[in-house]
């Protein structure tokens, strides 16, 4: 009985890892094959995934002969897979042709700016603080301001929540808000989460937490604070008054050609920029 359960465990573990391995190999293989036959293969940022998926859906209708495969894992996977030739288009939350946020510049890629992404610094809904200056946010993340009382809030220790290294949102936060100041990544009031959704949960479940996330995620138990007195809205991000925003990029190996070019042109078209892109809470770049 015991032995059989043990074996069951061992076997199921092995089988599941095989499946995973197989899946990983399979996707890579498929992507490879797709490139050869001239299909569009998109990989990279999950933040841009809704956008690329929607665009792919619409693009397929007008170009029935082009096959598009869209996937998403993380921003850094975008430039990586294009460089390796696994994907034809990489999606990334920063311009990966330049060295940003500790990541190297990817040479030989061409970046197309496709959308403006508004982000928000968020606190728990019950937190009375509703406005922070950039300096205050820097001080919080550097560990200089430790109590909400110093910011006009309750006498409670601030809990600092950060995304894991490699998150496109974190890269933008470090770029736009921290501006060269280092985040203190230790301490008993600091924790890291994996995804945007986890960030929302962490801030919603802790009354003293502060974090940051795409504006589209702000609802439920969290609220976006104004930065330097400017409310976090798409309108303010569009006008540039609100400073916490980033750009989404599509990357190709060299100049985009053929189907890739047609696809990027479609995303940059007025119709898509002012239609679906806006609906998905991104800001048009054209």
């Amino acid at each position, binding site marked *: 009985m015991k032995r059989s359960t*043990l074996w069951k465990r061992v*076997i199921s573990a092995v089988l599941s890892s095989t499946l995973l391995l197989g899946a990983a190999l399979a996707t890579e293989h498929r992507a490879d094959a797709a490139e050869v036959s001239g299909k569009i293969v998109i990989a990279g940022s999950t933040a841009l995934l809704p956008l690329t998926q929607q665009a792919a859906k619409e693009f397929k209708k007008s170009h029935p002969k082009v096959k598009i495969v869209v996937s998403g894992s993380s921003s850094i996977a975008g430039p990586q897979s294009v460089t390796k030739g696994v994907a034809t288009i990489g999606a990334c939350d920063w311009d990966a042709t330049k060295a940003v946020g500790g990541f190297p510049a990817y040479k030989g890629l061409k970046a197309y700016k496709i959308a403006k992404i508004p982000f928000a610094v968020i606190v728990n809904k019950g937190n009375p603080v509703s406005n922070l200056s950039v300096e205050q946010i820097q001080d919080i993340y550097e560990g200089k301001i430790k109590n909400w009382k110093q910011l006009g809030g309750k006498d409670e220790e601030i809990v600092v929540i950060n995304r*894991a290294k*490699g998150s496109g949102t974190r890269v933008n936060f470090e770029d736009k808000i921290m501006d060269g100041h280092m985040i203190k990544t230790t301490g008993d009031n600091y924790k890291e*989460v994996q995804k945007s959704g986890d960030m929302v949960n962490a801030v919603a479940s802790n009354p003293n937490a502060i974090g940051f996330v795409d504006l589209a995620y702000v609802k439920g138990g969290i609220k976006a604070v104004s930065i330097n007195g400017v409310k976090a809205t798409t309108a303010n991000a569009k006008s540039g008054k609100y400073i916490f925003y980033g750009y989404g990029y599509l990357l190709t190996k060299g100049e985009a050609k053929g189907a890739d070019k047609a696809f990027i042109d479609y995303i940059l078209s007025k119709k898509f920029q002012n239609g679906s892109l806006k609906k998905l809470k991104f800001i048009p770049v054209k």
Partner: protein
Amino acid sequence: MEKLSPDWTEATRLLTAQRQRWTTKYRFDRLFRFFCLTSIVFLIVVLSAIVLFVSKTGLLVFRDVSPWEFFFSSRWDPEHHRYGAAVFITGTLYVTFVTLLIATPISISTAVFIAEMAPPRLQQWLRTLLDLLVGIPSIVYGYLGATLLVPWIRKLTGAPVGDGILAAAIVLSMMILPTITRITDDALCAVPNEWREANYALGGTKIEMISKILLPAAKSGIAAAVILGMARAIGETMAVVMVIGNVAQWGFDLVTPSSVLTSHIVMQILNVDFQSTTNHALYMMALLLLFISISFIMMIRRLRLKGGPSS
């Protein structure tokens, strides 16, 4: 002669039919044998492929990082080329230790209750319940831990975050309780009834029977149960990543956000360049986990071979 011939025909017919039946039967046997062989070959190939791939990639880390730094430095800071994994290795061992500290006494007591004290109907009911609990996906435990346990720890200890080794250990204890309990229960039930009766015949009480006869007799089975629980705790990822806080720092006070091997791998693996030292370091951590698990399985096998009434 004339009369024999129908019998002959009949016999031949029967024989042919029988032979045909046997042939089909054996053909199926051979097919099944082939199927079993292919399965085992497939298993071995996959298993060695995993071990090979993980070790090949993992060992590359030592091209850029000294083993001394990897195993004994607590500074994990890939941006500044520091790849100390001591925090994660220690974290994994520490979290497992605290988990066992919580889970073992509870599991063994529960198993003793089920095996020795519970009335038959309750016994059956509890065993079914525990078997069901084993099947609960770990993400469910993790979610409950993050939404119920962590705020509770925050309130109780006054820690600002609440995530940490304690939260992870409690969640893991809940997860491995059913495993340890059921296997211990099996080990206890395997102790011959005569031994219990001998105790009573000598005037021993129930508590003497349990502590002096039952538990010592089943000790190798119990040890196997604990190690199996340990193996599960060490490899668990999703439940842990949700409650541990994921910070590369020591978490000895139990409520400081910290990190372990599994949670750190899953947090980072999607965000690193495949050719980078960080990636190799993560694979090295995976290799370490693999070795830890394998040594546990070996330990269980050895315990089994040693025997005792439970095996």
